[in-house]
């Protein structure tokens, strides 16, 4: 198997990495949606559409979540060990 790929990256390794990445992305999306829904949407449903306050809250929540997530990702990948 390794003789077929001169680049050195195994096909199975690439698939494994892609699968891990996909799981990570799916988990990130689910957690993001869950967190921002719990934070922003009132539990007593009065109408089916998102009103403007909820839209604005969701925009801010997603923006913060994404920024913090990318910052922590950079810290963990660059530092190796978290500075604790």
């Amino acid at each position, binding site marked *: 198997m390794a003789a077929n790929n001169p680049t050195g990256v195994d096909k199975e390794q690439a698939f494994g990495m892609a699968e891990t990445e996909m799981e990570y992305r799916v988990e990130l999306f689910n957690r993001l949606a869950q967190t921002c829904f719990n934070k922003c949407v009132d539990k007593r449903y*009065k109408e089916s*559409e998102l*009103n*403007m*306050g*909820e*839209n*604005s*809250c969701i925009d*801010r929540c997603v923006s913060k979540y994404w920024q913090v997530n990318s910052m922590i990702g950079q810290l963990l990948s660059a530092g190796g060990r978290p500075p604790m």
Partner: protein
Amino acid sequence: MASSNPETESNNGSSIAKEPEKPQIEAFRMPTMEEMRAQEVWNNCAVRSVASGVMGGGLGLMMGMFLGALDNPIMQEEMTGRQQFMYTMRQMGQRSWSSAKAFAVMGLIFSAAECVVEKARAKHDTTNTVVAGCVTGGTMSAKGGPKAACAGCAGFAAFSVLIEKFLDRHT
């Protein structure tokens, strides 16, 4: 979810003679970019306030025409029937135009204020209605001085809260 729809449809076709028709449950579709953009149009404060202003103008027009038609002309004996009709028409036109302007401005200011406050607070509350009502009442009675502005603010805020509670009474 896509596979469950043909099953319910075939069940309905076979049992429609025996049972009353069950309500069809549609599969859930994610909104397309066009639908999202169309929804985003109504999130814009300028669009909402202009639409409210137009609706307020229409309402003011109707109200002005109705109230203007009820007014009797002062000189009833001197004019013929046609002259009376023209006079009533002109009265109605003037009343409805001035009332349309007033209501349009009121709707515009109220909607703009409520939109801006709600976007800033990121919450859907009655506080937005109170602040918007106060701003509208204050600007509309600002010509009478600060006391009149405060009274207008409080009065219109209370009125808006009452209307909001009335419109949402069944939730």
